């Protein structure tokens, strides 16, 4: 009847091996695609994954600041990862996905094409980002590279990715305007 949704992995030798690797400094990453690229963020920073809902635009900001949406009564900004990496604004469809993340005290969403995987990645398996010309790639927000089967997954440090947008130039007390 219902057993089709789950596999019994005890019968599989490879699962047993991965159980051994599950110890130690291993962390889970949610990976997603933007175009042909695959990126990963630490699962601990991910609050939820939701389908695309139309945003309200914000004036006079770079194109990677997509706008704001209402997340159950709080207002969060949505960043377009494709635009952030210079690919221009994403042409959204119903299939696009927003990864809602907790970055410090702030909640923000990043717009990506699709969720692709959840990977358990051992610390040792993460390779440092290549020493590229800093003029070409802003390596600040890359926390490492990981090879999953034949794919390369770029692991992102989301805190740094939008550092320019969440450092509030005006250090006003936030509490004042918060009413809910």
């Amino acid at each position, binding site marked *: *009847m*219902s*057993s089709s*949704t*789950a*596999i*019994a*992995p*005890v019968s599989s030798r490879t*699962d*047993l091996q*991965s*159980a051994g690797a*599950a110890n130690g400094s291993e962390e*889970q990453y*949610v990976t997603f695609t933007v175009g042909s690229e695959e990126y990963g963020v630490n*699962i*601990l920073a*991910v*609050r*939820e*994954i939701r389908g695309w809902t139309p945003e309200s635009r914000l004036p006079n900001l770079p194109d990677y600041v997509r706008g704001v949406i209402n997340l159950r009564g709080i207002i969060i900004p949505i960043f377009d990862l494709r635009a952030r990496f210079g690919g221009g604004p994403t042409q959204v469809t119903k299939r696009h996905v927003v990864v809602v993340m*907790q970055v410090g005290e702030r909640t923000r969403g990043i717009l990506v094409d699709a*969720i692709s995987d*959840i990977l*358990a990645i051992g610390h040792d398996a993460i390779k440092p980002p290549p020493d590229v010309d800093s003029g070409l790639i802003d390596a600040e927000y890359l926390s490492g590279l990981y090879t999953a089967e034949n794919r390369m997954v770029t692991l992102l440090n989301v805190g740094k990715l939008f550092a320019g947008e969440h450092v509030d130039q005006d250090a006003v007390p936030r509490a004042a305007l918060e009413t809910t």
Partner: protein
Amino acid sequence: MKKKVMTVDDSRTMRDMVSFTLRGAGYEVVEAADGQQAMTAIATTKVDLVITDLNMPVMDGLTLIRRLRAIPAHRTLPILMLTTEADESKKSEGRAAGATGWIVKPFNPDKLVSVVQKVCG
């Protein structure tokens, strides 16, 4: 709307029985065979309750509980663990990991349903 319960157990028989009982009581049930599968499924599906066995391959029940509790969105997700009567140490270990409560084996379906109602309505 039906509440969605995830049963995590490496024993298919156990999963079937939990599913069957809870579906009979009006719940929607999804299944996972170990902690890893549960983590993956929960990342993309909203569930209202997790019932997990402790002794499982790949990722055991306690690890599952700890990992779930580490994710902000799941800090208040009800998680029940399956435990045996005499296993007080496991019970307290589970509580420390963040389990909401426990279902003591052996249990009958009435008990299962009443415990589930107690933690997820």
